């Protein structure tokens, strides 16, 4: 028994026991050293009288639960930094007020099975607490940096989107201008035709009044010409208006703002929209062939995916332009399909293909082979970030020099 007590005294942990009346019945050297109260001073005395600074209500409840239930109780420095106000072990380095402590309360049973006393074991958790605090600070810093990085990425994506919209703007203006011109021509023609018909009606009225209607018909302008061409002009104007309306609608859909939360969206519709707004970018060099399979709506940031589709289409057009000499055109094929877990979008071209030497760099930020003003080198980097980081998907490619490239987007359903 003596050796057991000697062992307890050598422990680098506080060990003390109290009986049901809260009298101290054991007090080891660690407790004596750190409290400044020797065993002789405290043994047999009430714990709370000896240490009035203890959190009495809390500690009494803990001890009572052990006496009553005969089971363990615990206290962690995380919730209650210290029970005893012991000095910490950092007289030189400091950085903390008191020794932080974990305490375990163990029942000690009498022969009749009742709890005779409660033994408390107190361990110094100061170093763990300081490490934890440092870790908390590091985590906080990391969270701040991640938030800042997220903000910068968002800004970059927005800038890229604005760049894409800017790039499209002149093409779109041209796309709108063409139907506007023939709408204007058609409406002008209809205006002239209306003036002629009004004059004709005047002539007929006068002829009816004069009783010379046959002569009026002989001198009438070419009614058959107007009958044939006015409806055609109206049809052309309406077609032009439909074309402008479709472009505006596509532009509106393409340019919709990004939202923080994903929403279910129809990828086929987004692809069709993007193909419409990007027409000016590819129409001189390529035909677009759509092979869109049945797709479920998928949870996504559709405005960001529009950017990806646009970028892949423009890249394909540029690759085709380098290989095919006008008036020969290449083909951009866009296919969609799905399986039980994913949807897939393939954008392929029959352009130049990607040289082997740069294949492992095409997704690097700011990497570009295009002349100044034709690309910032951000497109594929941002496209991959949108697909991989924002959607948990993949963006892969296959390429062959002189035959073209295929990019495949995989997105989880």
């Amino acid at each position, binding site marked *: 028994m003596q050796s057991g007590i000697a062992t307890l005294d050598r422990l680098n942990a506080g060990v003390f026991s109290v009986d049901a009346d809260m009298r101290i019945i054991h007090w080891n050297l660690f407790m004596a050293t750190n409290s400044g109260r020797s065993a002789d001073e405290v043994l047999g005395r009430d714990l709370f009288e000896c240490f009035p600074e203890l*959190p009495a*209500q*809390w500690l*009494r*409840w803990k001890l*009572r*639960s052990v006496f*009553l*239930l*005969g*089971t*363990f*109780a*615990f206290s*962690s420095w*995380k*919730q*209650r930094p210290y029970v005893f106000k012991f000095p910490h072990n950092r007289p030189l380095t400091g950085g903390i007020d008191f020794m932080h402590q*974990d305490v*375990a309360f163990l029942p000690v049973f009498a022969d009749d099975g009742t709890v005779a006393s409660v033994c408390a074991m107190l361990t110094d958790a100061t170093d763990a607490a300081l490490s934890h605090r440092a870790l908390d600070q590091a985590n906080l810093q990391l969270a701040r940096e991640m938030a800042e990085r997220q903000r910068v990425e968002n800004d970059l994506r927005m800038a890229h989107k604005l760049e894409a919209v800017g790039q499209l703007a002149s093409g779109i203006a041209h796309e709108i201008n063409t139907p506007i011109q023939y709408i204007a021509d058609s409406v002008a023609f209809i205006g002239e035709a209306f003036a002629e018909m009004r004059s004709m009606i005047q002539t007929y009225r006068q002829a009816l009044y004069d009783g010379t209607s046959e002569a009026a018909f002989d001198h009438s302008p070419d009614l058959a010409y107007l009958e044939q061409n006015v409806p055609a002009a109206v049809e052309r104007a309406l077609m032009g208006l439909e074309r402008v309306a479709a472009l505006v609608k596509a532009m509106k859909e393409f340019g919709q703002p990004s939202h923080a939360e994903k929403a279910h969206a129809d990828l086929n519709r987004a692809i069709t929209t993007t193909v419409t707004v990007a027409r000016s970018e590819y129409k001189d060099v390529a035909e677009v062939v759509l092979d869109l399979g049945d797709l479920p709506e998928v949870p996504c940031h559709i405005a960001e995916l529009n950017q990806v589709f646009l970028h892949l289409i423009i890249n394909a057009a540029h690759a085709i332009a380098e290989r095919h000499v006008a008036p020969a055109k290449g083909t951009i094929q866009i296919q969609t399909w799905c399986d039980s877990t994913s949807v897939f979008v393939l954008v392929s071209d029959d352009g130049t293909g990607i040289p082997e030497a740069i294949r492992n760099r095409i997704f690097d930020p700011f990497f570009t082979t295009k002349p100044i003003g034709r690309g910032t080198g951000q497109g594929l980097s941002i496209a991959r970030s949108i697909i991989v980081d924002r959607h948990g998907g993949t963006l892969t490619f296959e390429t062959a020099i002189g035959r073209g490239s295929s990019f495949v987007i995989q997105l989880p359903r």
Partner: protein
Amino acid sequence: MRGPVIVLGGSQQRDALSELVNIGMGQAGDSLARLFDTFIQLSIPRIEIVQPRDVTQAIAALIENTGPIVAVRQAFSSRIRGEALALYAAGGCDALADLVKYPDVNSDELLLEISNVLVGACVGGLAAQFSLELSFSPPSILGEHASIDALLDTACLPWKSALVAEVNFRVEDRAFRCHLLTFWPDDSIRVLLGAVDAFLAGL
């Protein structure tokens, strides 16, 4: 050491085990009532043997809840080793704040305190039926506002079978409910069932 998947020997073994668990939990209920000075309602314990691939579904079925929960874990060991999960609805133990009679208790401390008391009383009560003296680790929070799926990585569970005993607690007139699940994996089940068989042989 992991062995083959374990199944309960028969209805007699299951009934005896249920009865012993019931007695242990019942005694725990008495102690808890005296500690909290209020009436504690305990359910009849339910016992199942589960395998890792089924454990999430089994927990959801036992606690009849698939929404976000608060979970505290605590290990116990002696000749048998196991872990207890105390599962609460969102809000944890806040409804019991006044039952622990000390001031300035924060939400996490209360959660750990109540969980430790429930686990200690119930698992200790159960162990007493088998004459086992258990040692307990400090409780720790496994998840707050977490889904059941997020609690356990079923691909990495280091056991083939676990005996799960579930009991749930209510406290009169309070919005409080706790499901306490004790898990006894592989070899511990064998020790436990051995003790049950010895108990049956001694009848």
